């Protein structure tokens, strides 16, 4: 599904990753500073590698030798950040629909009602992000990425800003997304327990190297 073979250097840090990632949920584990978030940014298109290539199915997203780079807004991957990154000037409803509105109507796989019910955020739609608790915020961020009907959902430590009790409340929602939507996911976390709970396979990043 996703084939990557990339090298990215930023100052003294070098990330080199070569892997073929299949459908289902792929967990990526590793200590902080190992390059996990950098790897996700590369896949999302927020960073350009210096060397290598990235393919999604038959779709070539990056090929440095051929000068090809597909920008993030054309990749159709969803990315959920650590702290949600909800738009503070928009209501929860408008946050949820932000990516959905960019899609052609026949490309929309889910409706607002479906996603709001799945993540139990139906009651929050009129609120502003600052009126949400941390757990609510992350569920809205998940919903926003999901409503964009991504071909691949990238999750960058989506639970790390939450306490243990909240994590236990959100993990089942992630499992639900996996079983009920079938959207392939790459789940990055430094917590092996979270990854084991969700993932079908686990890769490890350590000191900028990705391995199985």
């Amino acid at each position: 599904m996703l084939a990557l073979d990339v090298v990215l250097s930023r100052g003294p840090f070098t990330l080199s990753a070569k892997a073929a990632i299949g459908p289902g949920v792929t967990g990526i584990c590793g200590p902080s500073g190992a390059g996990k978030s950098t790897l996700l940014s590369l896949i999302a298109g927020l960073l350009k590698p210096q060397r290598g290539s990235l393919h999604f199915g038959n779709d070539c997203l990056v090929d440095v030798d051929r000068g090809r780079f597909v920008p993030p807004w054309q990749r159709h991957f969803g990315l959920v950040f650590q702290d949600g990154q909800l738009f503070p000037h928009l209501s929860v409803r408008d946050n949820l629909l932000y990516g959905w509105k960019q899609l052609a109507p026949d490309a929309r796989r889910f409706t607002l009602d479906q996603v709001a019910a799945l993540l139990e955020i139906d009651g929050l739609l009129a609120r502003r992000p600052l009126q949400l608790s941390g757990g609510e915020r992350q569920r809205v961020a998940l919903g926003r990425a999901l409503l964009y009907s991504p071909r691949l959902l990238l999750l960058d430590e989506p639970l790390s800003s939450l306490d243990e009790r909240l994590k236990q409340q959100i993990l089942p929602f992630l499992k639900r997304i996996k079983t009920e939507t079938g959207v392939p996911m790459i789940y990055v976390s430094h917590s092996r327990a979270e990854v084991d709970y969700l993932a079908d396979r686990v890769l490890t990043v350590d000191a900028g190297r990705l391995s199985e």
Partner: protein
Amino acid sequence: MTLTPDEWQALLLSAKVASCATLICLPAGIALAWLLVRREFPGKLLVDALVQLPMVLPPVVPGYLLLLLLGTQGPVGGWLQAQFGIVLAFTWKGAVLASAVMAFPLMVQPVRLAFRMIDRRLEHAASTLGATPWRVFLSVTLPLALPGIIAGAMLCFSRSLGEFGATMAFVGNIPGETRTLPLAIYSYTHLPDGEAAALRLTLLSIALAFAALIASHLITHRTERLLGQLEPRGRDAGA
């Protein structure tokens, strides 16, 4: 307090000139502030200094330079007149330009600060949700910078209302054409029995500037509250 027709004329002209100057500075200021915050380009430092220059120069200097450049005998002014029939020197349009040049730094600074405060990751989030860079700018960057943009526009407007030196040097002091409030006050102080009129217009100027500053403060405050920038971040209670 009643105003004479001449005083009304000065007041309305001031309002017209300041509004037009603000409308010119607004898009230009937003574009330049964005470039200065988000892009690296050769000569950036020079552009930055050049924009700030009118703030630290005696206002008569930029005014005189405008006259040299854009006067009907000047290289640009002569061309404008020959090609398009546009005359700026000694017209109200020239007064707009003089005000705009002088007020521009006051527009750029708050907008620039506002752009700098925006979390880039919000823009990244928008781009991973399928938004093109232009759409990201319109739907995320610009609304989040709105308090700074409003503050800049208000400062720009107030500064334009008070413009004196550059206007005087570039477009002179022509009643009904370029005699704005400050110039009218100046003229009245030179008339034997102009003191009452000068005082009326002085009080009016103070009231206008005061109102603009208060309005700017209120609107900025309101917008910030709407954007949630005044409340503490990271409230993590319950799911």
